[in-house]
């Protein structure tokens, strides 16, 4: 829990967002899985460079919310606008948005039949239509940033969980996204590997990346986030800057949730 704040050092809270430009705008968004109303009237504006941590009990719709932003899930009502492009059934728009938005999954989802380097260059070669040498150069750059260039020729199955997740982050960064979505990036990791992944994420935050992170790492939230959003039963219950959020939660459900995750 304290790992991220160790790395983040003495900075108390994150620096203010230096721009007021809205990069993601979600208005009146609803989503159903069959009969189940999973997201209810979501309204959320994200500024460029803003870092948001989303937390809440399991089943509260937090993963579904960020998965709607790159259309891995389809919303049924309301609007989502990313970088001025609205997400509709329009395939061209979906393609544009997916190329702007990177995503890191809880279960890594590296391609097991490709080497680490090939995992990173796949989209550069087939989506960005880049020469292989140039793609490899970019990929090696990001693998160095996540501190595993020496594993480039190995296969995902030969790496530890923490290493795999760092490769997954590098793979997303290769596409040079404006926004990064993290869906519980450390939940599948052993405790000693959580730190190496959070360190990479903190560095990414320092570079000014717009980030939406679903996580229960409250140390990370305190050190890095501009805003913490609490969701329950498909609704945004409360949002605030981290210190206010943790020290003075206003809502009963928030208090209950915080007491549960901080009690041990």
């Amino acid at each position, binding site marked *: 829990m304290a790992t991220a704040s160790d790395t983040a050092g003495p900075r108390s809270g994150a620096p203010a967002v230096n721009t007021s430009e809205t990069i993601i705008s979600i208005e009146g968004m609803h989503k159903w899985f069959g009969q189940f109303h999973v997201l209810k009237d979501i309204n959320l504006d994200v500024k460029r460079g803003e870092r948001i941590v989303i937390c809440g009990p399991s089943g509260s719709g937090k993963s579904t919310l960020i998965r709607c932003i790159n259309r*891995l899930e389809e919303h049924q009502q309301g609007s989502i606008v990313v970088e001025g492009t609205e997400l509709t059934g329009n395939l061209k728009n979906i393609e544009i948005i*997916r190329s702007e*938005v990177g995503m890191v999954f809880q279960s890594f989802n590296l*391609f097991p039949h490709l080497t680490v380097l090939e995992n990173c260059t*796949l*989209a550069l070669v087939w989506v960005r239509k*880049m*020469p292989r*040498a140039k793609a490899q150069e970019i990929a090696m750059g990001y693998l160095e940033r996540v501190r595993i260039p020496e594993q480039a020729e190995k296969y995902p199955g030969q790496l530890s969980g923490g290493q795999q997740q760092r490769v997954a982050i590098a793979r997303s960064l290769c*596409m040079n996204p404006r926004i990064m979505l993290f869906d519980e990036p450390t939940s599948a990791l052993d405790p000693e590997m959580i730190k190496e992944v959070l360190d990479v994420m903190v560095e990414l935050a320092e570079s000014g990346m717009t980030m939406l992170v679903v996580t229960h790492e409250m140390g990370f939230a305190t050190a890095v986030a501009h805003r913490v959003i609490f969701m329950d039963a498909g609704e945004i219950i409360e949002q605030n800057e981290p210190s206010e959020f943790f020290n003075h939660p206003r809502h009963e459900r928030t208090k209950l949730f915080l007491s549960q995750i901080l009690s041990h």
Partner: protein
Amino acid sequence: MAAVPIEDRGLLARLWGNQETRSVIVQIATMAIVFALLALVLRNVAINLEAIGKEFSFDFLTAPAAYDITFSPFIDYTSRDTHFTAAAVGILNTLLVAVCGIAAASVLGVTMGILRLSRNWLVNRIVYVFLEFTRNVPVLLHILLVHGIVVTTLPPPRRAIDLGGTAFVSNRGFFAPSPVFEEGSGIVAAVFVIAVVAALAFRRWAKRVQVETGKIYSVFWICTAIIGGATAVAFLALGAPLSWDLPALKGFNFQGGLALRPEFLALWLALSYYTACFIAEIVRAGILAVSHGQTEAAYALGLRPNRNLQLVVLPQALRIIVPPLVSQYLNLTKNSSLAIAIGYMDIVATIGGISLMQTGKEMETMLIVLGVYLVFSLLISAFMNWFNRSIRYKER
């Protein structure tokens, strides 16, 4: 009571107490038992053959077979040919139905497997019902069913179903025009081969261009255009050196053209759709076994659905699909021995059937049949093992 120290026990007890020597002892004992059983069986055979006055020899293979084979598309066989030739006809007929069956079962199976994953409820259910019905009825019944349909419900040749005046369906089989190659068709064939080589060269070149510049060509369509275009141009330039030999009704049956006899048709169709049902389930399972997270990761990186299938899902699904697929091919090949039920002259019906009856050489003919199936099976398994090794994931 204290245990006796190991050094104080007898030699055998000490060897038995050691993990390595014990395993050697067990292996020696196993081998001894296997060889003893084998020797017993062979001795039994030798004594019994002697008792009924038979000798073990393959000399009969060079004697005239003296029986007709109704279906011999590759060898010009007559009843004056030897048992060896009859066996060769049987082996080729087995191979023919196996190869045609594998081809048809693969196409049909992959199609049904993908349709089974369709979100269209009706398509999905229709395929499902067909699969479940077919898979759970013995293949012999399917063969008899299709043969029955062909022989009893189709009209006789004189009232054959006419498909545009060139092909005919009757209870004597399916008759289609066969191509007759005229002068110049050799050149067309040569052009075709050159076009295939050119297309392969283009593919390599396109791959290199992609590596160097990133430009992506639609390789499949361009290769198709090269091969199809060049062959068509050569064909027309040489004055279309190809004509068709049309089947025509002469007397009681059709003459000329390409004839598929009802036995072959029934065996081929029944084996194909029966095996296709198993292949469909294998394909469906293979695609479903690739975690949906892989597709999500590919989409999140901006890959389109067809690229996701080509670069992410299929390479992983193939590793799961190929081994059981090969064993289905093996099953189809072995199931073709049911040909005997409808009189298709395969290896079992020729050398293992009529030749056996006529010469009384049970041991020898059965050994030949056994050997043939064994060689087919071992070849297929060798391929499967090689393929498995070459695509295995690298893990710790």
